[in-house]
């Protein structure tokens, strides 16, 4: 399945340099593919919307909505957390599809000395020979998971500051003012753990698939098992990411009166 000849050499990301800035073509392609898959899936599920006779896809999507609603209900108060339902849905669908996309196959090109893509030179890292990996999970890239993580963390801070200003500012100095540095570290650690957890799980899964592929034919049962496990891990990580997003947003922006 994987068009790989040797795993001895690291697969390079197909990077082009535009105006002195590096762009990772594989990442861009995968982000676009994942987004398109997610959008098409969502569009298909709402194509024939019906109140009393929903189709299979609509049922499935409604189940996802209920699922995310339950996540929000667990993390915060659903009535006030309702505005984040779309965010949670987008997150879980995008991350899940992203996690799954990297599993079934890979697409690798070999280059010797020089490679171009649409007339743009690919960055070869100074090597004579390189393998470019064009297909991977968008969530198997630390910068991209950190993008997702920081997005939701920034949202949680903004919403906390807007809707819950007094308690939001106060929580940096709790339980005592000299806890401020610790709270600050926690604030910084939140997006880091959120993004790197997702990245680590999915990247490790892909690395493991590469390693198993290196075993040749002997590795096929192990590959099957590992891919199955990766589906499980991908689903769990999508759930965890969404859950933690809602927990963080809830902590920051929704203050419970009886608290």
């Amino acid at each position: 399945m994987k068009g790989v000849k040797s795993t001895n050499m690291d697969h390079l990301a197909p990077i082009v340099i535009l105006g002195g800035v590096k762009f990772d073509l594989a990442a861009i392609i995968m982000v676009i593919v994942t987004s398109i898959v997610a959008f098409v899936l969502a569009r298909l599920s709402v194509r024939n919307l019906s109140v009393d006779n929903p189709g299979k896809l609509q049922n499935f999507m409604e189940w996802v909505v209920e699922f995310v609603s339950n996540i929000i209900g667990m993390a915060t108060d659903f009535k006030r957390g309702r505005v984040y339902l779309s965010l949670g849905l987008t997150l879980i669908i995008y991350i899940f599809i992203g996690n799954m996309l990297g599993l079934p196959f890979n697409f690798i090109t070999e280059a010797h000395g020089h490679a171009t893509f649409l007339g743009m030179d690919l960055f070869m890292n100074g090597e004579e020979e390189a393998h470019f990996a064009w297909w991977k999970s968008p969530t198997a890239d630390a910068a991209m998971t950190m993008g997702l993580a920081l997005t939701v963390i920034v949202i949680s801070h903004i919403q906390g500051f807007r809707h819950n200003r007094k308690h939001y500012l106060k929580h940096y100095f709790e339980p005592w003012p000299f806890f401020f540095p610790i709270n600050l570290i926690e604030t910084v650690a939140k997006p880091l753990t959120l993004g790197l957890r997702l990245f680590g799980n999915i990247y490790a899964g892909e690395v493991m698939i590469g390693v198993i592929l290196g075993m040749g034919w002997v590795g096929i049962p192990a590959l099957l098992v590992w891919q199955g496990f990766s589906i499980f891990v991908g689903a769990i990580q999508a759930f965890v990411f969404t859950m933690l997003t809602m927990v963080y947003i809830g902590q920051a922006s929704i203050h419970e009166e009886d608290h």
Partner: protein
Amino acid sequence: MTITWTNFFVQVIAFGILYLLLSKYAFGPLFGIMEKRRQLVKEQIDTAERNRSESERFLEEQKQSLQQARKEAYDIIEQAKSTGSKQADDIIAAARGESSRLKEEAVRDIEAEKNKAIASLKSEVGGLSVQIASKILEKQVDAGAQGELVDQYLKDVGKKS
């Protein structure tokens, strides 16, 4: 593993666009439909609840009217019974009166017939006795004494009548 920092912005922008598109073209309509269904279910539950209470009310009414009908029927039967027994008493009384009247009449008739019979018997016996007497006397009494007897007899007859 190299980190390309532009991926960060690519991801953020792409996610933002995906979020907007999904919210507008997928989740918006989906939420609308789900809300509509919730309304529909709520409405149906309300209707069912209303129907249930209504049917309960009807059932209660039916029970009451049935009870009332039963009571009325019982009253009617009771009334009919009492009327019937009264009528029977009346009829019996009337029959008794009639029979006693008939009996009295019969008794009276019998008495009258008896009297009549007695009277006619008397007159017959009188005539017969006269005839017998005259037959006997014809042989023993001569004309003079016979004349005397006839006179005597006529006198008696005249006295008796």
